[in-house]
């Protein structure tokens, strides 16, 4: 086996895995704070990317467009809290989950009504020419994306594990009433979390948009986050990044080394199979909170 080639595939896989992590991170944030799988995360990625790209096309400055898009994501967080979550306080989780499905349909229509449904090119100004490191080809864009995702994950991990707001967030996820009794404002926490998930969606939207073009199919990227979440655990920020790395590396390696024996094109389903095997042995994921039940 050619070691150099193996390393090249591995590194390429790991780097593209960070892009999955980024999408998964958005799910983790909202899941941690409300115990709800946010079905609308993929649509939020589309909304952010499309808003940004249209602003740039209208001739706005790059950074101004980012700031305005982020402001739009914060506005979305306020709107979701006020119109969707607040009326549903203390309802069973399945109802909140259904509400996020409704939100998905609304946001899909809303996004494409105010903007459009065409494919847009998004240029972040990062060259996608590979670096040649001792004969290995490493994508410059992937390295940039990995650094962006890594920074984001590190910041959020510390924030949510070590600070008052992080604790408040986990408290809200565990028990609404108890959280209120210690003076945690549910509204406050939800807005913070949805805004953070919006920020993650924005970064993911920019990176994926630059790679695939900004178009409706970006929402499908969210599906790739599922095996990442199952591997990493729905409640773990570091889990999202490790899960992403494992999925990214394993799908590329599987494609190259197992693919030829079974007719190829296994990259698309391999992560899901890996997730299924994981579910059999460790349903809470690698880093998820243990499921504790006293009987």
């Amino acid at each position, binding site marked *: 086996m050619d070691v150099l080639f193996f390393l090249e595939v591995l590194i390429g896989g790991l780097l593209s895995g960070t892009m999955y992590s980024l999408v998964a991170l958005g799910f983790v944030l909202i899941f941690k704070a409300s115990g709800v799988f946010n079905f609308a995360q993929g649509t939020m990625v589309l909304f952010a990317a499309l808003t940004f790209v249209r602003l740039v096309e209208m001739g706005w400055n790059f950074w101004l467009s980012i700031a305005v898009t982020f402001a739009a994501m914060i506005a979305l967080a306020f709107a979701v809290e006020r119109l969707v979550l607040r009326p549903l306080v203390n309802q069973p989780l399945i109802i909140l989950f259904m509400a996020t499905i409704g939100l998905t349909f609304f946001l899909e229509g809303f996004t494409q009504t105010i903007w459009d449904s065409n494919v847009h090119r998004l240029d972040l100004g990062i060259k996608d020419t590979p670096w040649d490191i001792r004969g290995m080809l490493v994508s410059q864009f992937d390295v940039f994306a990995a650094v962006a995702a890594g920074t984001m994950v590190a910041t959020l991990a510390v924030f949510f594990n070590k600070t008052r707001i992080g604790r408040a967030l986990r*408290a809200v996820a565990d028990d609404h009433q108890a959280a209120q009794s210690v003076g945690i404002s549910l509204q406050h926490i939800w807005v913070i979390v949805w805004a953070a998930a919006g920020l993650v969606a924005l970064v993911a939207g920019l990176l994926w948009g630059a790679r695939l073009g900004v178009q409706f199919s970006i929402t499908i990227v969210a599906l790739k986050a599922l095996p990442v979440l199952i591997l990493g655990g729905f409640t773990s920020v570091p889990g999202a990044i490790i899960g992403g790395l494992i999925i990214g590396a394993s799908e590329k390696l599987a494609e190259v080394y197992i693919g030829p024996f079974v007719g190829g094109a296994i990259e698309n389903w391999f992560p899901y199979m890996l997730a299924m095997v994981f579910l059999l042995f460790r349903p809470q994921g690698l880093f998820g909170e243990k499921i504790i039940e006293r009987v």
Partner: protein
Amino acid sequence: MERLRKIGDVVLKMEGISLAFGGVKALADVSFEVRAHEILAIIGPNGAGKSSMLNVINGFYRPQQGSITFHGRTRKQMEPHEAATQGIARTFQNIALFKGMSTLDNIMTGRNTMMKRNLLWQALYYGPALKEEIEHRAACERIIDFLEIEAIRRAPVGKLPYGLQKRVELGRALAAEPTLLLLDEPMAGMNLEEKQDMCRFILDVNDEFGTTIVLIEHDMGVVMDISDRVVVLDYGRKIAEGTPDAVRANQTVIDAYLGVAH
């Protein structure tokens, strides 16, 4: 029993509280007062409206009628968040802890309203936010010492036995340094030894911190031993109020508990 703190002025005044869920009247025109540093017990048969009353005090329920005067301010109803910042802490009948979190983190959430550093500093986890975190951690360690739960500091509370969970929940309430502590059946489901420990903690809290305590309890022995005054509810109405001895001798109370021949 001699107590260190002298009972002071009225801190909480509930006037004409009525609360209904649809056609069910949970509370009907209930009035009583709570004085500083006292231990007030609310007793009554099942479904008498005791827990509803606690929920009204800390703002979970909004009464249709009546007023709540706390520390001189009169309002129609409390907001849970406001109650917490005004110094009202509570525990729950069915333990409501954050089960996936450690004992220490649970108690730290109790200090939520006292931590002031903003989002930005916390995001950086540096400077004032870190210093604040350490100060509050020290306060929580004192509570952990006080409740003698050092050994389970790091354990996820979902794994702890029932009696210890109750103690952690008390710790979380104490962490807020409340002036008024509401305890909803703090001894439910405990064995004799656990009950004695809990009684001791409640009396110590009252003595050492001067905390005013309103508690709901079914164990009459406990109620008679530790409370200064007792309010008796039955079918949402107040039927008696007074010292434990007076209440015990009250014929209406005896009828409510034992039933009366018609």
